[in-house]
């Protein structure tokens, strides 16, 4: 039930169900939950690490010190050291830029592709949309990782390949979401109202359909970044990503694999870092999504 005020007066009477008439001032007050605050903190840390790793690192990432190889985490080396005595914490910090760029890049590729495919599937003529739909369905049938492996096999391992492989691999799922959003917006009351006003199709597309379809993608993008980092690391771990001297997190995992019994921290810590970053990105993505759905901007 909608509460109704005498419409010329600004005050709002108490509503029967207290749902829809909360005045705008109180709507703006949004609780900052501790999990979101924590996620923002984590992302800020990694952002700084990506921009200026020197500020956060305690050692040079490539400084060899064979006298202190394979040290467990401690006061001198927070995350321990690897077989050549390199400080793992500093390597993680210096690897952030590459890991994040691969994550962001893959997410951008994925959503960009999804936007194109999704729009075509929703808006193009019957032949084109039908073909795109079939293509998306076929791509969808491949597991993301398998598809990414295929692309790496064709293009050869490198950071760029990783971005493309992960991006293309995860695009079909997002293309489906984009298509659904556009179809929903196209059948909405406001699009019909705009048609009734005599607005041309192109304007309606620009003004209503695209913005309303894209809006939820802001949240999806952050979710996608987290996921892409995980996929990219999996590729590196399989030795199909960035070459070993780099301290990209997946590569760290790969390098630590041989010492899993002697120095488990070499594989546990980079793994945890990936999980923490992905979690943080997902938490923020969900928060943005919740805010958008509740109508707040």
């Amino acid at each position: 039930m909608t509460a109704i005020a005498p419409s010329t007066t600004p005050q709002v009477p108490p509503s029967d169900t207290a749902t829809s008439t909360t005045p705008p001032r109180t709507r703006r007050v949004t609780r900052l939950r501790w999990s979101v605050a924590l996620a923002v903190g984590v992302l800020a840390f990694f952002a700084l690490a990506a921009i200026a790793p020197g500020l956060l690192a305690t050692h040079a990432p490539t400084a060899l010190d064979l006298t202190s190889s394979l040290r467990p985490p401690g006061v001198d080396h927070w995350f321990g050291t690897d077989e050549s005595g390199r400080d793992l914490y500093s390597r993680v910090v210096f690897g952030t830029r590459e890991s994040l760029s691969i994550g962001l890049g893959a997410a951008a590729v994925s959503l960009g592709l999804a936007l194109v495919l999704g729009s075509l599937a929703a808006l193009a003529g019957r032949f084109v949309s039908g073909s795109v739909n079939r293509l998306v369905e076929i791509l969808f049938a491949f597991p993301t990782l398998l598809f990414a492996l295929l692309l790496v096999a064709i293009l050869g391992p490198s950071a760029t390949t990783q971005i493309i492989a992960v991006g293309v691999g995860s695009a079909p799922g997002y293309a489906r979401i984009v298509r659904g959003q556009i179809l929903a917006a196209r059948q909405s009351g406001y699009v019909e109202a705009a048609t009734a006003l005599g607005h041309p199709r192109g304007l309606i597309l620009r003004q209503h359909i695209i913005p309303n379809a894209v809006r939820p993608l802001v949240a999806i993008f952050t979710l996608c970044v987290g996921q892409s980092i995980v996929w990219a690391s999996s590729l590196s771990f399989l030795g199909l990503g960035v070459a070993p001297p780099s301290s990209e997190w997946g590569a760290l995992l790969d390098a630590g694999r041989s010492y899993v019994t002697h120095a488990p921290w070499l594989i546990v810590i980079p793994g945890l870092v990936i999980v923490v970053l992905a979690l943080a990105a997902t938490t923020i993505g969900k928060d943005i999504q919740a805010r958008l759905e509740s109508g707040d901007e």
Partner: protein
Amino acid sequence: MTTTALNPAAQTDEASRPPTRLRVTNLRVGFAKGGHERRVVHGLSFELAAGECVAIVGESGSGKSVSARTLVGLTGAGATVEADELSLDDEDLRGFTDRDWRRVRGSKVGFVLQDALVSLDPLRPVGKEIGEALRLHGWGDRASRRAKVLELLDSVGVPSAANRARQRPDELSGGLRQRALIASALALDPGVVVADEPTTALDVTVQAQVLDLLEETKRRGKAIILISHDLSVVARLADRILVMQGGHIVEDGPAQQVLTAPRHEYTRSLIAAVPGTHTRGRLLGSQVPPVVSVPPRPATPEAEYAGPLLEATDLVKRFRSPDGSVHTAVDQVSFTLERGETLGVVGESGSGKSTTARIALALTEADGGSVRLLGQEWTSLPERRRRRLRREISVVYQDPLSSFDPRWDVQRILEDAISSTDLPSRAARRERVAELLALVGLTPAVLGRSPLTLSGGQRQRVAIARALAPWPSVVVLDEAVSSLDVSMQAQILDLLVTLQAELGLSYLFISHDLGVISHLADRVLVMKDGVVVERGTVDDIFARPQHDYTRELIGALHPLNTTPTTEG
């Protein structure tokens, strides 16, 4: 004065008074919000005896629904409920825990909600749903429960109950769903039934059936609390009426007295707000809509056109169901609309009236027939060539919120509706927005607000302002006042009537509500199953209905809609 429909049971002799079921004295309900408590019910008191119906009437936000929910222990989180007395069958309800309420709810007090589609589990056959209520209270064994469910469905007038019990809510019509919901509320034979707007979303004839059912329930000795904003609904059933405003009871008395000789001004305004044949030509609300200087419409050939504005000829629209069968939604419908007149299209849901409106708006392509707008080709043109004429016909929907882009504020919504070829400068467009707001009685304060934060009435005013932005000749009003409560509906109807007079608008007014149609239509089309069964002037239709269906519709109207019971 007509009192025939008012319940004679109101004069029950005090000596033979049946047992009192529910006693409420000075009930107060508040919600804690942001540290301080906001009280929404201030001192509600009444007694309810077996076989009696007490109605609580008021507009949205008056606290009537909160009161109803409190009486079944569903006030909600963060609510504080206080009362000097609150007892059901002499059992004190104050300090009841959730567990206590679960024991009482269903068995001693049943609850019927407004919308059966939302209140019934969509994935469960209705028979199971009703059986669940029995099972939870440990009633009988499986076989006897099944028999009881069928008996219940049968008793609320659900035909071939055995088949219906196996269907899910979405497979049932609105009326059958509401009956199923009532059956589930009556399942454990509670002494008291709380019905919160039980007929609001229903068609007139279905509404009459549900009211008959509730009346029958009352005759069988149930005590009913009826919550409604619609006095014509309440008048059929209530023995006693409490009028609520802003959480206070402003009037309380026997139904007949409240309806025919209301003492409080608010009650009088509620009664006066009920539209009907007797209200034609006068305003429903007490406050006169502001008369604003009407901005002149730019002179165009269209503005001068004197012929029929809309001419629909033999419109046909078919829909193919998922199972392949073809359903004719609109069948050979023809009509004309002259300048300055209101053509009412009345019918129940599924009668094809909204589809007809959409065809007239050229938002749905007809399968046959065509509509001419201002004497020019209209529905037969491709959309590209229609755009030029679109400004001449605009639309206001039942649910304004969904017709606004959720990202936009009122300013943007209205500015968008103003053609930049009419008013090339931004300043001129802003001025026009201010003009439109004044026209529909809104203050500029709403400009920066999202429609989400506006009340239902304000939203509908924004929708009307948008419809008027391009200086249209025809406005299609598709159930435009149907989701508003009586007071707000009265205000919007008054606004529409005033605007029509000031701007010389023509309305194609689609509604299921005969009271509204009889209040403002000049001519009426009565539609049933896609066919126009009767047409004529409003006097012909309401004074001399020819078709059985029209008679049935009018018979379902309450005297409040046709005869003045009081002069406010």
